């Protein structure tokens, strides 16, 4: 066993054959997902054993037909851009590598490849002998089918692509039963979206203080959503105190929209919100109940008469607004 494992080390076999079809997965995943982060993660896994660029070339190039044709429609565009850009950057180096891949691909020696794959399915440490045995027995039938299917799949990747299957590639040293694969797909979806959220929520994307980890990110998100909702409440309150809601409410807003500077808006500042802080609000409300009749006649004099009243209200509104922000 030791001899065999050392053979792996020397013979840089780029053939990571752990694609698994999930045709009958109980978890219904619509769309088609290839792992677009393969190049980066492969580097992490392999840095200890192999040259990283070598393998990232390989993986990306192998994935290329799959990725470009089979990304699901509702994935954000950033995903496709990432994958295609990474693949294009590495394409130049991969020409020699690809020849090797294809030669390996066409090897009729399925069982040989099976053994390598099985051993890779175990833990990354060299002492994976016993686990390899168990894994091998369980996965033997699967992997044989997978090897054949994968050849076919790579050749006609375009046709088989988007029919409800999720193609996942298990990396080295990770379990390959369907449940954990599905788990991993789900986890990566989530982490990807977290990343886009990081750019959106302020305070999360400082260069030196990148908040990774779901809990902290979720904390930030929750705070932000709550603050936005509070702002909406507060602003709607402010707007009620500023604008009369009479028959010409709509017209007022139209005027504001069209020419916010010129128009002299006939705004009578009404009382503030029904906060119990202000006692005069009730009395003012009764007074201004008479105003709509006067306004309808376009009577400007009454407006000016209410000037000092308005000043009082403005002061009060400023006061109450400060109070609002602390609730």
């Amino acid at each position, binding site marked *: 066993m030791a001899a065999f494992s050392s053979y792996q080390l020397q013979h840089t076999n780029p053939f990571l054959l752990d694609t698994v079809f999930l045709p009958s997965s109980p978890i219904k995943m619509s769309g088609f997902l290839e792992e677009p982060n393969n190049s980066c993660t492969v580097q992490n896994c392999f840095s200890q054993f192999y040259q990283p660029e070598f393998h990232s070339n390989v993986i990306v190039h192998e994935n290329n037909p799959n990725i470009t044709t089979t990304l699901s429609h509702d994935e954000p565009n950033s995903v496709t851009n990432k994958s295609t850009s990474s693949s294009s950057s590495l394409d130049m180096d991969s020409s020699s590598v690809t020849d090797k891949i294809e030669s390996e691909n066409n090897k009729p020696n399925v069982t040989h490849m099976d053994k390598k794959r099985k051993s890779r399915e175990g833990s990354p440490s060299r002492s994976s002998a016993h686990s390899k045995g168990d894994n091998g027995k369980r996965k033997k039938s699967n992997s044989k089918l997978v090897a054949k299917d994968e050849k076919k799949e790579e050749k006609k990747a375009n046709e088989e692509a988007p029919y409800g299957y999720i193609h996942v590639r298990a990396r080295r040293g990770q379990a390959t039963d369907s449940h954990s694969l599905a788990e991993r797909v*789900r986890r990566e*979806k*989530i982490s990807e*979206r*977290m990343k*886009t*959220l990081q750019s*959106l*929520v302020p305070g999360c994307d400082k260069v030196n203080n990148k908040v990774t*980890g*779901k*809990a902290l990110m*979720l*904390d930030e*998100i*929750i705070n*932000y*959503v*709550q603050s*936005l*909702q509070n*702002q*909406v*409440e507060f*602003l*709607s*309150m*402010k*707007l*009620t105190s*500023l*604008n009369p*809601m*009479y*028959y010409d*409410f*709509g017209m007022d*807003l*139209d005027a*504001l*929209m069209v020419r*916010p500077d010129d*128009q*002299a*808006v*006939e*705004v009578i*500042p*009404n*009382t503030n*919100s*029904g906060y119990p802080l202000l006692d005069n609000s009730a009395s003012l*409300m009764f007074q201004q*109940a008479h105003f*709509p009749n006067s306004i309808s006649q*376009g009577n*400007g004099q009454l*407006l000016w008469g209410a000037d000092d009243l*308005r000043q009082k209200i*403005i002061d009060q509104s400023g006061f109450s607004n400060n109070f609002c922000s602390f609730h």
Partner: protein
Amino acid sequence: MRNPSSLKQEFLKKWIKGLQICSATKKKMSIMERRKAIKVSADIAMASTRKSTTYWSHALMANASKDDTNKIIIENILGNDDDNSKRIIFKKASMGISMSQKRIVRSKKIVRNSCKISRRARKISPSTIAKKLVKKRTQVLKSLVPGGEYMDDASLIKETLDYIISLRVQVDVMRHLANNASHEINDPKTSS
């Protein structure tokens, strides 16, 4: 993502429409009613910019249309769109949450209760603590986002993304409006 300024214009137009309808139906409203009308029409306008493509907008409109007065607003705001979406929203509102979602909620409750009941000695590793924290926070987030209780984690995050953008648009528009209106008050008026 959409262009934010076009979103803002769309939102503003729909909001004004809703407010006009509100003021047309009721001549005199109290303060609280006005505030509620403003907020509700803003919410509906915001949700209708997404036109039920996202889950939260659908849920928001469904909740809003439970109240009869809002139904008129919704109908008029959605006016030009096809009748299908309107019908779906009203039906959903009347039915409450659909049967499948009820099943999901019920089964989740059962699982949660059974986990609480089985008090085996569980190892308290840092990963479980982290998972618990994350779980708590997703619960909170689900309560915040409208219609969030019936979504799984991944789509929940997508919905919050969308929701945050729309909320931002809403806040921006309202703030501009409020600033302009307050400037009009504070500046000396020319006689009309």
